[in-house]
């Protein structure tokens, strides 16, 4: 069989397995994903004029994932140079396609062009692994989620700080609030994957204390990242202080709930039931109270065998 066709058939099989293990039949997973993607994209367009930029960033974030070093090295050593380039180009194009379609439908042709060109370019760019440089973080006291996560996503935080600077410069308060939300959304991703069981087992703590310490660290470190934005916005628009504090507190609430949701599925990754409840919480914030208490109970139960 043609190696490239075989590669993509295999990737399709692997994707189906991921969806099945998430608790869905593959076709339903695809239908839901498409629906969710379209819904979210139109929602972004409805809520903010920066939607095309967000879609552009979304594309680059997804494409960057495919360019991950070990994965790329594997493809390079396994396939002939020309096949390797075709595979990377096709992969990036497939990932960029849904974003491209939305941008074209919304007549954002410039962003669509940037999306496609960026995706193509990133298939051929070899990101330097160079450096023994270690990005310093203020999170060394309590590794690892924030220390590791910050190093992977620091550019999103730089973007958030740039956006709040722009928000203040052009007098756009909504953009400022968006940058605050962006910081918390990025922090949530630090808890999206379950660590190896060993890294839970090493703690000489019972589940309640373990969870409390995780939440405490999460809240403290997310404050380090979000406070400059919150303070800048309060200084910029003191009359909206209550709104900024509300978003800051909501950020804390989502982060704590997310941490509890993560460990409620321990030792597996967050599954379908947790994801549905979290998604509902994003549409109805009061549900956070119910979700947090439910996840807390499940987490203590899941962690009990390994943290007696």
């Amino acid at each position, binding site marked *: *069989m043609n*190696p490239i066709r*075989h*590669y993509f058939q*295999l*990737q399709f*099989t*692997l994707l189906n*397995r*991921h969806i099945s*293990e998430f608790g869905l039949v593959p076709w339903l997973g695809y239908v839901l994903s498409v629906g969710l993607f379209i819904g979210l994209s139109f929602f972004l367009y409805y809520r903010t004029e920066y939607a095309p930029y967000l879609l552009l960033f979304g594309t680059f974030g997804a494409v960057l994932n495919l360019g991950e070093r*070990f*994965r790329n*090295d*594997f493809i*390079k*050593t*396994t*396939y*002939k*140079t020309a*096949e390797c380039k075709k595979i990377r180009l096709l992969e990036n194009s497939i990932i960029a396609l849904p974003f491209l379609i939305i941008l074209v439908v919304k007549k954002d042709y410039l962003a669509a062009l940037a999306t496609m060109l960026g995706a193509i370019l990133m298939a051929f760019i070899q990101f330097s*692994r*160079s*450096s*023994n*440089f270690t990005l310093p973080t203020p999170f060394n006291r309590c590794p690892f989620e924030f220390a590791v996560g910050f190093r992977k996503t620091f550019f999103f935080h730089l973007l958030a700080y740039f956006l709040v600077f722009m928000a203040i410069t052009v007098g756009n308060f909504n953009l400022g609030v968006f940058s605050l939300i962006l910081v918390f959304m990025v922090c949530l991703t630090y808890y999206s994957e379950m660590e190896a069981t060993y890294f839970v087992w090493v703690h000489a703590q019972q589940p309640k204390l373990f969870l409390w310490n995780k939440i405490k660290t999460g809240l403290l470190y997310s404050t380090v990242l979000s406070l400059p934005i919150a303070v800048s916005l309060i200084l910029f628009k003191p009359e909206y202080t209550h709104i900024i504090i509300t978003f800051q507190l909501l950020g804390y609430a989502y982060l704590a709930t997310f941490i509890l949701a993560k460990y409620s599925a321990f030792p597996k990754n967050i599954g379908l039931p947790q994801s549905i409840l979290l998604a509902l919480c994003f549409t109805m914030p009061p549900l956070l109270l119910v979700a947090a208490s439910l996840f807390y109970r499940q987490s203590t139960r899941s962690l009990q065998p390994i943290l007696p």
Partner: protein
Amino acid sequence: MINIENLSKYYGSHQVLKGINLQLAAGQVHGIVGENGAGKTTLFKCIAGLEDFEGSIQGDYKPLKNHLGLLPTDPFFFSKITGREYLQLLCNARHLPLPDLDEKNIFDLPLNQYAATYSTGMKKKLALTAILLQQNEVFILDEPFNGVDIQSNMVITEIIQQLRSLGKTLLISSHIFSTLNDTCDRIYLLKDGQFVRQAGRDEFADLEAEMRAFTVGDRVARLGLG
């Protein structure tokens, strides 16, 4: 023959490899020893074309990567790929007909399980099986014995010897000197990015004694274990 001349590699301003010269003859097994961070893996990646470098690598096989089987220290596996699919993928990538995998599964690996669930040694054995099925001419094996059980160690040693007798070119690194002693025709000592010593088979014992004296020195005494 693969001829590596004056190969240097920088990570930023830090020079990891400093003018490496190495001739890899067909039908010979070349061993590289060195401390962690000496530059062994970087050298292997340069030869495989995974890293840019200064200097030149010339050889009979063009391009080398299409004839090269690289066994990394920590092989990569796609999430949710089974052992069988991994072997199929690597054979297919080289346009090779698929052999009877059950027959070729000499390490008795559970091929229908996800490769990610394998132990370190099983992952290594799966990746080794795959590059053997690819019928490569050149093999770079980074720590092939690492984490592998003693029975499989014996099988791997036998495989290396057979590859040598078939005229293949082999470059191996290992932290276990005895495994190199059993398999290599020549051993190179890499230190701080350059070869500081090389030895033929009749000098292996001297090389090991020198390394032991130099490496161990007074380090253990410094721990003050009592």
